[in-house]
């Protein structure tokens, strides 16, 4: 195994590693435009120049394989001069668009210019004009002038999405990226080219002009779009509600997790954040009239306690949801199954599988199906599927629904009858849907961005979601609603919040043995 020295530090790496990767291992950052760890090496941007002893010229770190005894300097007068010259070439035809460019603020041209450039421009000629604001597809806008031809996007469509829509056309300073004739950048992962574009050439049409990136706050989370559980960063703005008509979340960016999604995320997950700010339930409703949380939860608790004392547990049914966090599902189980003895408690519904592929998208569109399974709430008993039929038969008098749209699942007619038949139809959910229209009680709950918790993805990886901001006024996270019910029913539970519930989960459920939020971290761990 070759051992080399980079900036005076020794490192031993696998043969075939490149210098940039070896430097990464040492925590030394080498600037790059065309190099991306998830893509093949192109070596065309030349910004990653480093000095290698006994080599007459500067070498590109991204495409120089390591050799034993190599001595590399990533910082030196020569290296800086080299990088400065490279930048000067790259910026020759780059327009001075920064104020109107969406990339500005997270642009590597800006960053590296401030770090290695800072030269007096010598270019006095006319810049080459190219097409601006060209939509490449439903999600991506191209500004050919801003492109520095790093070819990351081209390699992405070739290697990752394997759709190959993009290519580089023409030669010299007329070269520009573009679509092959008759093609459109409309694959399921198209949004990723915006993330990997180091400059403002490819911008997200959804995010375009919405906000400046320096307005954004970021919070790590996990996509709730499917059971893959891709790691994401939620980018949100709380103090400038005018930017997107009051919406808080501005965009979703994938977060690197080598075990789950690497650097990528599908478009369905990327643009699936809008429900966080749209169509949210804002009031506790009892048959259409507003009611306070205290009163509503008091009546809920009274109903449940009545069922318990009269031994009518069989008349209560609960439809939990695999959209809930593991903590909340645990509370659902504790409350309804363990404490009240409700037998009909399941998170399983006859939902049709959504789009899926062999990469990131899974057909199961719930992020926590595996978690519900581990807690015994997904039961394979097919009899549970006829819950609605039994309810219509009059065997069930109280039905709790967490988030599901029964109208979509069973049809409007049935739900209408159900609503008439049941004594109590409780809907706990964040957004209005068919069920919330027919439910007797509507308890508005928080979305995943507004609460702490964990999801277990389809590969059994326990991953944290982190509360980014407060729930909307008058909505509460499900765990808080459930803990209040515990208190109202005078069932003692030792927990005050998700972290403690998860620790309780770690103590009580073998699959989560010994887990805490600290151990799960931001990259997640596998269930035992």
């Amino acid at each position, binding site marked *: 195994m070759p051992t080399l020295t980079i900036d005076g530090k020794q490192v031993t790496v696998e043969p075939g590693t490149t210098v940039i990767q070896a430097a990464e291992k040492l925590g030394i950052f080498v600037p790059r435009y065309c190099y991306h760890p998830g893509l093949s090496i192109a070596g065309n941007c030349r910004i990653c120049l480093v000095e290698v002893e006994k080599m007459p010229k500067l070498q590109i770190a991204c495409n120089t394989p390591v050799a034993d005894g190599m001595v590399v300097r990533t910082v030196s007068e020569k290296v800086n001069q080299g990088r400065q010259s490279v930048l000067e070439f790259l910026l020759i035809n780059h327009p001075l*668009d920064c*104020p*109107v460019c969406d990339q500005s603020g997270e642009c590597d041209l800006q960053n590296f210019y401030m770090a290695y450039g800072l030269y007096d421009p010598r270019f006095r000629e006319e810049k080459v004009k190219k*097409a*601006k*604001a*060209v*939509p490449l597809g439903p999600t991506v806008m191209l500004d050919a002038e801003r492109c520095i031809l790093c070819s990351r996007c081209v390699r992405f469509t070739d290697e990752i999405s394997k759709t190959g829509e993009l290519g580089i056309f023409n030669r010299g300073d007329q070269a520009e990226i573009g679509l092959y004739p008759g093609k459109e950048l409309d694959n399921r992962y198209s949004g990723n080219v915006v993330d990997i574009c180091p400059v403002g050439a490819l911008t997200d049409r959804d995010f*375009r*002009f*919405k906000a*400046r990136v*320096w*307005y954004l706050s970021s919070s790590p989370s996990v996509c709730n779009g499917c059971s893959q559980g891709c790691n994401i960063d939620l980018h949100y703005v709380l103090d*400038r509600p*005018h*930017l997107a008509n009051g919406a808080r979340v501005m965009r979703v960016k994938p977060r690197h997790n080598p075990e789950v999604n690497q650097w990528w995320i599908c478009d369905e997950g990327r643009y699936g954040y809008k429900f966080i700010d749209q169509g949210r339930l804002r009031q506790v409703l009892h048959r259409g009239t507003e009611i306070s949380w205290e009163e509503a939860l008091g009546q809920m608790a009274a109903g449940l306690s009545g069922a318990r004392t009269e031994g009518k547990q069989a008349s209560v049914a609960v439809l939990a949801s695999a959209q809930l966090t593991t903590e909340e599902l645990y509370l659902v189980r504790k409350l309804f199954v363990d404490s009240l003895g409700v037998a009909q408690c399941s998170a399983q519904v006859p939902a049709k599988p959504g789009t899926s592929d062999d990469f990131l998208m899974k057909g199961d569109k719930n992020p926590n199906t595996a978690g519900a399974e581990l807690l015994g709430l997904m039961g394979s008993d097919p009899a549970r599927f006829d819950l609605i039929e039994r309810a219509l038969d009059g065997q069930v008098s109280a039905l709790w629904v967490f988030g599901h749209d029964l109208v979509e699942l069973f049809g409007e007619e049935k739900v209408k009858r159900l609503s008439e038949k049941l004594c109590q139809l409780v809907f706990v959910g964040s957004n209005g849907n068919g069920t919330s229209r027919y439910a007797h009680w509507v308890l508005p709950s928080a979305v995943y961005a507004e609460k702490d918790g964990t999801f277990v993805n389809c590969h059994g990886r326990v991953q944290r979601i982190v509360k980014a901001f407060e729930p909307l006024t008058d909505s509460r996270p499900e765990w808080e609603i459930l803990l209040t019910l515990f208190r109202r029913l005078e069932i003692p539970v030792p927990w005050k919040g998700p972290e403690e519930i998860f620790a309780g989960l770690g103590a009580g459920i073998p699959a989560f043995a010994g887990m805490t939020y600290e151990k799960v971290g931001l990259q997640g761990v596998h269930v035992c």
Partner: protein
Amino acid sequence: MRRKRELTFWERLYVPEIIRGTWLTSRHFFRNLFLHTAHRFGLLKGIPAAVTFQYPEQPRPLAPRFRSRHRLTAREEGTPRCVGCMLCETVCPARCITIVAGEHPDPNVEKYPVRFDIDLGVCVYCGYCVEVCPEDAIRMDTNILDVAAYSRDGMKLDIHELMDPALRKPLAECKLKFPHRCAIHGGGERGSWEAVYNQTGSDPAGSDPIRG
């Protein structure tokens, strides 16, 4: 540092100094009283008796650098020069600027403000917005000082008043041709780019708003 000066005996007596002070003010009093009286009879008009400016009839001359109410500069066809880069919104220490950016049909312009509001009730008149603007799109040279309103909402300027400093609230009609968010007649989107270019007869650089 200026140290306290020891008072002389004469000054410490206090009374003479009081008389001296009163003498000074009284001299002004009688001189000005005489001049005021003379002015009443049309005499000695050349010698001013007071330094007062009778604002608002007689506005005070303003320095060229004076920062007064804001305005948005316009392009030839009457649309704002502003490209909606939000740098002023970013730099504003009082956070009184509200911008919503929209897509401009000319791809070389890219952005323009669909909404541009300044809340003068919050503005501190620091002039950073003017300083930071890359397009010379906002200026504080209207020489409007009498910014007053009966409500907080009245202090909020929208794009109409900023484009045309002569406008005063309440605005009865909207004359802006380009699409913008408008509080007049409801609050929806008003105007269209076709109206702008048909009116002036000019053609934007790329007549096709979306080139592809």
